[in-house]
């Protein structure tokens, strides 16, 4: 090291504390340089982030992400009115149905179970033909958005309308899988079959 050529290197200072001595060595140059570097970074960071518009603010950055994600997730779906046709179109589109499953896994499984087979006392089996609160497919949308009147199922207020449509379509698509559920999870009665999915050959 270059420092060792310095006459003053490893020169002991005169004091002695309980036998401990100290060298009068200079602080390593790289210590100064990095310290200075972090100070320069700090100043630049504050100026660039808070006093220019080069980098979007925390809230702007989030808003941009949300807007981009809306487009990516829902695309054409956003223009369709909330009706049975919309659900049938989702049911015929694998990507949207997968989105419905993702929402279902994050929202519904806590009561209806991982395979929608139902949980005793909480949620009904959604894979059989028996329904308690549903007479036709659009009733599912109403259930998800508003819950049941007796508050056994809460309204899923966290979801936006397109998410509600997707998760409802996914729930409808589970019918007929007939996963065995716990006792009592098959409450309700058999209702008419749901209308068939609409498959758009050109994609969603």
């Amino acid at each position, binding site marked *: 090291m270059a420092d060792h050529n310095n006459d003053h290197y490893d020169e002991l200072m005169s004091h002695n504390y309980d036998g401990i*001595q100290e*060298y009068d060595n200079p*602080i390593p140059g790289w210590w100064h340089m990095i310290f200075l570097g972090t100070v320069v970074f700090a100043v630049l960071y504050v100026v660039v982030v808070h006093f220019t518009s080069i980098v979007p603010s925390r809230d702007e950055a989030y808003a941009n992400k949300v807007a981009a994600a809306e487009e990516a997730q829902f695309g054409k779906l956003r223009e369709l009115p909330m009706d049975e046709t919309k659900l049938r179109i989702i049911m015929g589109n694998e990507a949207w149905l997968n989105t419905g499953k993702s929402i279902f896994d*994050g929202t519904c499984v806590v009561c209806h179970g991982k395979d929608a087979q139902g949980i005793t006392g909480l949620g009904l089996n959604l894979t059989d033909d028996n329904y308690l609160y549903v007479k036709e497919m659009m009733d599912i949308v109403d259930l998800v958005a508003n819950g049941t009147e007796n508050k056994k199922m809460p309204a899923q207020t966290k979801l936006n309308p397109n998410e509600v449509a997707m998760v409802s379509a996914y729930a409808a698509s589970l019918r007929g899988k007939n996963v065995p559920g716990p006792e009592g999870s098959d409450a309700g009665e058999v209702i008419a079959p749901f209308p068939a999915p609409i498959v758009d050959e050109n994609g969603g």
Partner: protein
Amino acid sequence: MAEQATDQTSGAGAQKHPDQSGLEAFVYDDKIVRMFAWATVIWGIVAFLVGVIIALQLAFPQAGLGVSFLSFGRLRPLHTNAAIFAFAGNGVFAAVYYSTQRLCKARMYSDLLSKLHFWGWQLIIVCAALTLPLGITQGKEYAELEWPIDLMIAVVWLVFFGGNFMMTLIHRRERHLYVALWFYIATIVTVTVLHVFNNLWVPAGLVYLVQHGQMPSPELALKSYPIYAGVQDALMQWWYGHNAVAFFLTTPFLGLMYYFLPKAAERPVFSYKLSIIHFWSLVFIYIWAGPHHLHYTALPEWASTVGMVFSVMLWMPSWGGMINGLMTLRGAWHRVSTDPILKFFVVGITFYGMSTFEGPLLSVKSVNSLSHYTDWTIAHVHAGVLGWNGFMTFGMLYWMMPRLFQTELYSKKLCALHFWIGTIGMVLYVLAIYAAGITQGLMWRAFDANGRLSYPDFVETVTVLIPMYWIRVVGGLLYLTGACIGLYNMVMTWRARPEKYEEVVHYAPALSKNYKGDPPAKSRLGANTKLGDAGDRFLQGNWHRSLERKPVKFTIWVLVAIAIGTLVEAIPMFMVSSNVPTIATVEPYTPLELTGRDIYISEGCYNCHSQMIRPFLWETMRYGEVSKPGEFVYDRPFQWGSRRIGPDLAREGGLRTHLWHYLHFKNPADVSENSIMPRYPWLLSGIINFDEIRGRVDSMALLGVPYGDLLLDGKTVEHAKEQALVIALELEEQGGPPAAETMDKKVIALIAYLQRLGTDISKEQGEAIVVEEVGEEEVSP
């Protein structure tokens, strides 16, 4: 042979040397050091053991046995408090009492204060060990201890410890203060300030006693509410929390290092100049860094930026200590291979270097967006505490053992075994938990091809960590085993002590009053300008030499250094209202919800659940709308949390039925197969003390919460009972137990609170929480 000194010999009233040479005789008090050393090891083992117990509960939730005082939420604070304040704390005191006397050439100022300090501190620890498992907590991390214990800490720390220490400095016989003492001064001053300002509260039991003339139950008597709420409470808490790391786990250990490392290595300290500059830059900069614990939260962005850039600037000041430590070992490296004490120090300092590089890294906002709420933080702190604090402490203890017990160390081999077993345990622990943290962080933010969460079910992101959690249990067990070997070695060394400890009498002159000071430095420049010469003289550091002669002045400058960052961050947060924009629909918690919230705090739910949704798509898709500062104005204390072992609860209100919560508390696995949450059977049977809700509500009112008519006589209790009945009836309708069985149970209050969480912003204005009037007759028997 030195004469036997009497017990009365102290720094203050020292005897004169028999030959009348003006020398004073004094004896160091090593008994107090021995006491702190024993306490360090014993509490260390307790802290590690509790750590292993709660680590086991995460890997194997049934290990909690459904017992309240063994539940994770209650024991985790016991683990952290024991590790920080009992293990590291007693270690620091042992170091301070041993080194300060020798660096000052004086016995501690007062043996009585030393003893009061020791026994007072152990009493505080015992109180902590009794109250925390009982759920008596302030609900703020590392500041969990309730108000009477806070008062004890203030007295023991500032008066007994601080007073004794400062008076010893004042009565010292060494002209200049060595760098170790600077770090001790910074520790004592700053911890006092942090402790006092983060623990300002209103004790609910006293309010109840004064306003209603009734004796509160122990539960209410020990309950307090902080004077800060929401965002401000968060700022104060993390100003405290971060600087507890700085001034309880960093500065005193640097002081320890500066004394015991050159002693053990028998080498001079590498650079005096570096000591000066890294001391002052560390003390000045550290205090600003707290807000980096709150990146992307409802804390204003400017404060977050301040926290981040000061953390980045803290890198080199921290490393100054590492450089001075490792470079001091030059010329002694060959001894590291044979001396286990130096091994402890080298690994300790290396872990310090890694942690203080990682700290700034984690404070960078984008890194933090990944690491925050994950095990990465847990790995980081364990690298710091197990590696730096633990190993420096053990190195110091092994160095002191032969000196304190005045005999040979019982076994150097066992000492080396402790080192290796501890190192392996530590490495297993941190590697597994780093992996766990990064895995979970990446899973939370993973999107599938459709732009949706790849792992929407939170539990999925937990089950995948279980193997890593088992490795942690093994790592922790190894570290604990190492500590037990250390205790055994210490006991065996102690057993070989002499019948009576020799008390060596030392002689030194008292400091003369008319010290002229060092000769002024000469400018090396020979410049023509006075300014240039003055600048060079400043750089040579003589001004600091003179400061080292004045402990009181030194202390005041430390206080100034830490006050600047504190005030710059705190004043705008309290004075500028735009930092917390008001939301009209956000209203106070109802009396029952407030009671439920206190249960939430008491059970330590915040140890696993956050209440803060950050502005990221993956976060809002999972949890709902971004959290706003105005939503927390009635949160005393704030409960944003720091780790998501379970999901965020900021918008939990209304998401699930009462029955779901009821069954979930009864046994989480019944409704969520792979959940690692403990069972809470005691909440299902525990009774709400409705009468004392008045003490809770009145305390809040005293702090300015607008409860209006509810404060009128009897209204508080009536309102709480009505709301409990409504919830109990709904629970019954959903298929739960009869309302008559549940309407007075704690679980109902907790459900009331959970169902309220995060719902206020979606309320129409003026739509208060209306509790329907329900007659008693509607309750089914």
